[in-house]
């Protein structure tokens, strides 16, 4: 496992693709949220009317409520893109043949990818909340209030939960043997989640539960509904490990 972990960590650390995704997720989301703050504060009444409800009740709490909305969509796409690249690139670049006939088993390599992804998600979740605070300060929100602390905690949790519900993208990238298959799946999860929320499934639709939980400040999703993410993650990871273990390079 150690060799596989070192390998996967080095690939992610050195990759321009992974760096670009990281920057887009962290700075991109923070920039969008700060832009919303600035837009609401302008003299444009129409803009303020449109964006106002998104940052209700205003201040740091409203700012993090908006961040939750943006993170649930952009974060899912970013996480899906990284997973798709990590798993799908081996097929697209042909390196998958080199991952056969090794003393390190393929399911170990897949597990190492997932572990490195989890560490990346942890780093991104912390970096994102720090970036949000920095952009909030620059945008004139003033000192962070005590009321904002739980919202910051929810923001970290939301990023991590969003990272977990993106894991099926890695399975899709493996089965589809391409980066695009994974990204398409991440987009599909996002669209279906939006539709499910509009249809009124609420927190019972597991892919939508993290966003609903964070946006509603924990009021619209029960702990049971949120806990359903655990079997989703375990199932997705199991499917990925089995797929890599049984992988065959047929036409």
């Amino acid at each position: 496992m150690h060799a596989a972990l070192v390998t996967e960590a080095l690939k992610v650390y050195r990759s321009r693709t992974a760096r670009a995704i990281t920057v887009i997720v962290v700075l991109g989301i923070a920039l969008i949220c700060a832009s919303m703050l600035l837009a609401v504060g302008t003299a444009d009444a129409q803009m303020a009317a449109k964006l106002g409800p998104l940052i209700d009740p205003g201040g740091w709490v409203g700012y993090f409520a908006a961040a939750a909305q943006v993170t649930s969509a952009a974060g899912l796409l970013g996480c899906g893109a990284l997973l798709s690249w990590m798993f799908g690139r081996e097929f697209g670049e042909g390196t998958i043949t080199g991952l056969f006939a090794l003393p390190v088993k393929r399911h170990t390599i897949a597990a190492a990818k997932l572990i490195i992804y989890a560490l990346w998600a942890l780093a991104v979740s912390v970096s994102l909340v720090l970036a949000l605070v920095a952009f909030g300060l620059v945008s004139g929100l003033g000192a962070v209030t005590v009321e904002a602390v739980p919202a910051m905690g929810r923001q970290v949790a939301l990023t991590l939960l969003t990272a977990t519900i993106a894991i099926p993208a890695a399975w899709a990238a493996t089965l589809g043997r391409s980066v695009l298959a994974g990204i398409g799946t991440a987009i599909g999860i996002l669209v279906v989640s939006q539709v499910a929320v509009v249809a009124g499934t609420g927190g019972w639709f597991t892919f939508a539960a993290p966003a609903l939980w964070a946006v509603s400040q924990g009021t619209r999703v029960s702990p049971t509904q949120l806990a359903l993410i655990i079997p989703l993650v375990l199932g997705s990871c199991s499917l990925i490990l089995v797929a890599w273990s049984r992988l065959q390079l047929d036409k």
Partner: protein
Amino acid sequence: MADVALAGRGLVRLYGDGAGVRGMDIAVVAGQIHALVGLNGAGKSTLMRILLGMLKPTAGTVTIEGRRLDGADWAAVGHLVESPLAYGELTVRQNLALGARLHGVPAPRVAPMVDAAMTELRMDTYAGRRARTLSLGNRQRLGLASALQHHPRIIVLDEPSNGLDPAGVILLREALLTRAGDGAGVLVSSHHLDEVARIADRISVVNQGRIIGDLDPGGIDIERSFFDLVLADDTEVPCTRR
């Protein structure tokens, strides 16, 4: 009886278009270079994929040093099939170190092994270059270095001279002859009959998913012998592919 490093018996694996492998027996002997030659689509690459566990045969068995694939000592195997194990964002040195670690080489031995591999395949000047910036030929050299650096006892290379310049071909030849001399069993596929005639101890001709005969590496007109065998087989067994 010579030690068999790598063996396949009764191997069958067909694709939907009729291509693939239809009943192949092969034994790669330790200390010998065994070449597979054949036209495109003859089944060489499919055979190699089966031997390396990339494809499960629908019939037949594969053994590596007498053990089935699920119990094989994969640290003793080096291979290059189609694309080199080279990640564009990593340097040549990093790629080789990664390859060594994945082949089970203990950490303290990795650095000297990588240095030796780069020297052997004249990659020293590219040590700090990212793989994405290498030419096709140098990427192939990198892949070969990764496959050979840990001095495996079983070597499987599919079209290893692809993209190599004449100097690279000579380096490859010397590397394979050295390893075979040290006791490794080497299986290579190639389209270059002259090249395999220079290094191979045995040349098997693959056609329509079967091994249809051997060529004499020391023969005078090996190309003519090859086409005679293929033509006779095509005449005897009409093409089964569409």
